[in-house]
């Protein structure tokens, strides 16, 4: 099947648009092989931004998507969900990080634009080779282990136990309570800590 790639360049408000020439990159992306559509938008991660991608997938029959915006460590899951919602396998998506690695760290706009261009080109080349991957599921054992029975451990244990689930609460000391048990009164209400 012929590759049909959609490329979306995010302004991230002024975060990206202020430091790289978004229009230029969009134009460049539009000219790359297999790219069917290249657009830019103020906030790609917003609902209207995601809708643009979904519509293009449906209307233009895109089968690959590249978003050039922030770090994949931040929004890769978001956009994977977006393409999945439009019926595309979430792994047929790639991100180009032109905010953390370009806009925010370079001062020369021309150089930053040039680098962003390269990153977009890399993402487009890469996504063309992506293959759909099957998402796998494993069952979840309903019991939970909590390590440390201070205030955090006790609170979490009680909530899960009150939800009717088994909890193993492991504490190194002879008694539960942790640091909290040492306190007499707690700020700012001065109620007791027991």
């Amino acid at each position: 099947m012929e590759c049909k790639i959609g490329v979306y360049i995010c302004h991230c408000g002024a975060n990206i648009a202020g430091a790289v020439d978004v229009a230029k990159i969009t134009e460049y992306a539009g000219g790359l092989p297999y790219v069917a559509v290249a657009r830019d938008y103020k906030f790609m991660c917003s609902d209207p931004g995601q809708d643009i991608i979904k519509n293009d997938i449906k209307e233009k029959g895109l089968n690959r998507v590249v978003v050039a915006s922030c770090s994949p460590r931040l929004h890769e899951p978001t956009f994977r969900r977006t393409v999945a919602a439009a019926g595309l396998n979430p792994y047929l998506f790639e991100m180009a990080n032109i905010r953390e690695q370009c806009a925010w760290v370079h001062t020369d706009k021309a150089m930053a634009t040039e680098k962003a261009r390269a990153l977009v080109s890399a993402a487009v080349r890469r996504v063309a080779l992506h293959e759909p991957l099957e998402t796998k599921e494993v069952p979840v054992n309903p019991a939970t282990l909590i390590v440390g029975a201070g205030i955090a451990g006790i609170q979490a244990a009680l909530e899960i136990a009150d939800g009717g689930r088994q909890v193993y609460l492991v504490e190194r000391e002879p008694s539960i309570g942790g640091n909290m048990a040492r306190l007499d009164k707690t700020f700012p209400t001065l109620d007791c800590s027991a």
Partner: protein
Amino acid sequence: MSFEPKIVGILCNWCSYAGADLAGTSRKKYAPNVRIVRVMCSGRVEPGFILKAFQKGADGVLVCG
């Protein structure tokens, strides 16, 4: 025109790539000559990647992990 080297950085997603992100969020400025390729671990790096980069005109390759 002064020499502008092209450097390919192959970075681990969990440490150095995260570090590059951190540089971004802290707005630390550095030269735009390095272009980053993300891998899930620097253990993934094959000698072929480095040769490829040099073949395609890189002046340096930085592997971090």
